[in-house]
């Protein structure tokens, strides 16, 4: 049994364990959930240390026949790209549980159901990143909507049912478009004499596809991923879902699940349809840049803390997509590293934001003020998270944003220049809430807010540590990411343009 399969099954075993516990014993349920996710996290870190970075083939491969009559296999495996995202997911999940220790209470259903949903979700997340069979990926891509739907609808706040439905409908619509494209890929591969869903074999399929077919199938995949990521103009579900979800759900949604979209663009869009990717790149670059700027403006205008964080994510996903479709190895590496960092900085923002909201009982930014004096530790944490979001040099997100912009500039200088504007706007959308919420006179009603307790400090510490550590010393991760990115670019038939002084003139 491959270590990746074991990793994916660990949370599921945890879910069974939680299910077996009695309903009343709330603390024991939480402990069991935390223990199984912690175990998963440590095992994930162990797997990362066993990964051979220089090898661009899939590693820890698990391959079993599943539905042979359709050439469907149950096959898992990771390359640098998948590994980094899995690592991010498994590290974040226990922190999410720890940070939102009490958010499972007061939901529509019992505490137990909440943790079962979270643990099942973690299994699916690992599976979706590790799937090397297109059909398996599709199955998990769709199925993952269900636990999130119940998490938002059952444990969220405000207009949670409507937000959950909107989330699910967008997701299903994208997924079903992708289903048509998946069927198309299958039919073409079987028409070419060898039916297959294996992504390594499918990467050679573009040779037998007409460019029109390739374009349509590419769009089927891309629209699904652009909804998931989300890219302007398909983003409208995200702020609602993020606002309605509990902080923990929103971390998993924004930090982890949305990465499936950008991951899919690299893994499927570029790898299977290199020619169509080339055709659509200019359009996608325009959408990405629009997302960066538009998301930033929405964030500046936002009055609600959770919506603000959702809008910043839209802007950040613009950067990630820009890096991916710059079709340079630097841009790709930057995008992958960006996905990792975005996971952690969003988690930090939402964790602190969640605590602030829980203490104050309101998510309106104007209700906060003077937190720096009342709750200094919480305020500092919010500040660091904000700085990470605006990519302050010295923090990990700076490295990735820089790589994306450099990688883009060598091929699309204009896009890179406009995207740089996004950094300026980021300073605005972060500093405005920092100033409003942390500084200035203490808003009446805030005087007695308690500062972070020990549990919360323990939850946020690893996140901040990751943000700072990889800011100063990113090479352990980049060493894993770079060969994978170079491999994607190379096997799709692109090459890095040599940087010249004249570029952009």
């Amino acid at each position, binding site marked *: 049994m491959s270590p990746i399969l074991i990793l994916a099954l660990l949370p599921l075993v945890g879910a069974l364990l939680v299910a077996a516990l009695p309903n009343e014993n709330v603390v024991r349920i939480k402990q069991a959930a935390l223990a199984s996710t912690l175990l998963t996290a440590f095992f994930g870190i162990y797997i990362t240390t066993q990964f051979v970075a220089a090898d661009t083939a899939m590693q820890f491969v698990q391959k079993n*026949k*599943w*539905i*042979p*009559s*359709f050439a469907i296999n149950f096959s898992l495996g990771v390359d640098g790209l998948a590994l980094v995202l899995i690592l991010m997911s498994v590290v974040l999940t226990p922190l999410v549980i720890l940070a939102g220790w009490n958010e499972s209470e007061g939901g*529509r*259903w019992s505490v137990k159901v909440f943790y079962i949903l979270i643990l099942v979700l973690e299994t699916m997340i690992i599976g979706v990143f590790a799937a090397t069979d297109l059909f398996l990926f*599709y*199955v*998990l891509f*769709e*199925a993952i*909507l*269900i636990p999130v739907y*119940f998490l938002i*609808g*059952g444990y969220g706040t405000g207009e*949670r*049912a409507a937000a*959950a*439905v909107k989330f*699910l*409908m967008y997701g*299903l*619509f994208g997924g*079903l*478009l992708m*289903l*048509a494209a998946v*069927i*198309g890929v*299958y*039919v073409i591969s*079987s*028409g070419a004499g060898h039916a297959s869903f294996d992504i390594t074999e499918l990467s050679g399929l573009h040779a037998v596809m007409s460019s029109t077919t390739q374009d349509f199938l590419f769009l089927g995949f891309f629209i699904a991923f652009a909804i998931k990521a989300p890219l302007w103009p398909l983003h409208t579900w995200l702020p609602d879902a993020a606002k309605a979800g509990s902080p923990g759900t929103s971390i998993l949604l924004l930090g982890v699940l949305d990465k499936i979209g950008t991951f899919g663009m690299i893994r499927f869009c570029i790898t299977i349809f290199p020619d169509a990717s080339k055709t659509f790149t200019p359009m996608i670059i325009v959408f990405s840049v629009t997302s960066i700027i538009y998301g930033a403006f929405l964030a500046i205008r936002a009055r609600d803390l959770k919506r603000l964080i959702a809008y910043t994510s839209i802007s950040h996903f613009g950067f990630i997509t820009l890096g991916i479709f710059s079709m340079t190895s630097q841009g790709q590496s930057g995008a992958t590293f960006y996905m990792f960092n975005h996971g952690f900085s969003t988690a930090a923002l939402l964790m602190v934001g969640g605590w602030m909201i829980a203490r104050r009982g309101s998510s309106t930014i104007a209700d906060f003020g003077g937190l720096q004096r009342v709750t200094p530790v919480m305020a500092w944490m919010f500040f660091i998270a904000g700085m990470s979001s605006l990519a302050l040099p010295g923090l990990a997100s700076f490295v990735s944003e820089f790589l994306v912009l450099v990688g883009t500039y060598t091929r699309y200088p204009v896009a890179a220049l406009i995207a740089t504007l996004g950094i300026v706007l980021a300073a605005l959308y972060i500093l405005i809430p920092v100033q409003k919420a942390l500084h200035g006179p203490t808003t009446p009603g805030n005087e007695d807010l308690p500062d972070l307790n020990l549990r919360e400090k323990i939850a946020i510490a690893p996140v901040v540590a990751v943000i700072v550590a990889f800011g100063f010393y990113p090479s352990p991760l980049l060493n894993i990411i770079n060969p994978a990115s170079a491999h994607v670019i190379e096997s799709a038939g692109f090459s890095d343009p040599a940087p010249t002084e004249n570029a952009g003139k």
Partner: protein
Amino acid sequence: MTFTAPVLEYALLAPILIVLAGALIGVLIEAFVASAIRPTAQLFVAIATIVIAFAQLVRVHGKSSATAAMGAVTFDGAGVLLQGSILIIALISFFLIADQDNFTAAAAAVPGSQEERESHQARIRTTEVFPLTLFAVAGMLLFPIASDLITLFVALEMLSLPLYLMAGLSRYRRLASQEAALKYFLLGAFSSAFFLFGAAFLYGYSSSLTFAGIQAAVTGGAGNDVFLLLGISLISIGLLFKVSAFPFHSWTPDVYQGAPTAITAFMAAATKVAAFGAILRLFYVALANAEWQWRPVMIVIAIATMVFGSLVAVAQRDAKRMLAYSSIAHAGFLLSGVIALSKSGLDASIFYLFVYGIATVGAFAIVTLVRDSAGEVTDLNRWSGLGKRSPIVASTFAFFLLAFAGIPMTSVFIGKFSAFSSAYQSGSVAIPIAGVLASAIAAFSYIRVIVLMFFKDPVEDGASVVIPSALTTTTIAATGAVTVILGIFPTPVINFIASTAYFLR
């Protein structure tokens, strides 16, 4: 002129003959057995009949490549599989039928009359429904193996006449039930007339009533094409009426709503299998070489059916009507397997028919449980908050709905996937595209129900869930299990179908 006595292969015809014998015994029980033990006796006879017939079917399936009864029926792999599906669906439907005090005591009494009240007070139970169902089952068993037009028509009437009656047997809402029966009867008679008219034209075209003869005439191409076209279209109307394809669907919602729910379950599942079986044989065997005449129209009908069914399902406020429109949409999805006109299309259709039939019986079985003092509650608004009071029943219903929506890890998804890919493989790209779009629309109507059950609070006059009897529990558990298991491990069944399903031409 000498008279040749027809040779009947009793061994091959055994399953049908056994079911007919069981039905006759049922009639005798009605006449001679004391009314107190009648329900038990009827149930026993019905179930024993189905089980023995199934055993016979298993026995003859080895010799299943023969024509019987002077070529009037053909035993081949596809026929046996369809007959097996019908018997399994009939068995679980009997569990539902047995459970109901849902049938009126005096079907012939005027609704609301003194006679009706008296018969209710006398606690008379309608047990005629058992032999009636068995007669219908016998017709259904004959329908997909009939290989000449007369036998096909006889089978059509044999399965329809009992169903017309059974639709009118509901204990509650007598008027609606009688209306349903009348409507079904009148429209059914109308469609039978179309069918006969079409058969006459096909006879005129080929001077043969057998499928083999028609096929030979089509291949020879010597006949009058106008007769062929008229024949195909009129006979198709008759058959498409039975599977409730657009625009011949208008009876479906009223009949599904008015009929007793157990009968609706049986009708929706088993009739569809039988009628699609007949359609498959007619188009795959007799008219395969005339594909240019019927295929384009069939594609239009399939797309119109799936889109129409999905769209109208969204507007439904009644559980049974919603399921009726969903069944119309599924008729469209199922037609894609007919359009494929290939071995993979045949395999896909048989698998899809079986799993859809099973899931349909399961979904209607749950509808029978949701009640108030005046019988079943099908008004969806009164289902709100059901998830709170009866989490297991509501979750199971939600699961069936997600299966209908085509969410992966359910059997219906595998069916849909294989049907769409077979249509795509035969060059009908429009089918999978329209199919996924229709699925997205249909998903909305299913999700609306899930929202109602789980995310809304119970209303004042809300429905409650009765504790299911052992038989209904068995039905629900078995259908649910099949839907999950065939969604995750469909391989044995798919392989079995692939190796067995073929048409003897």
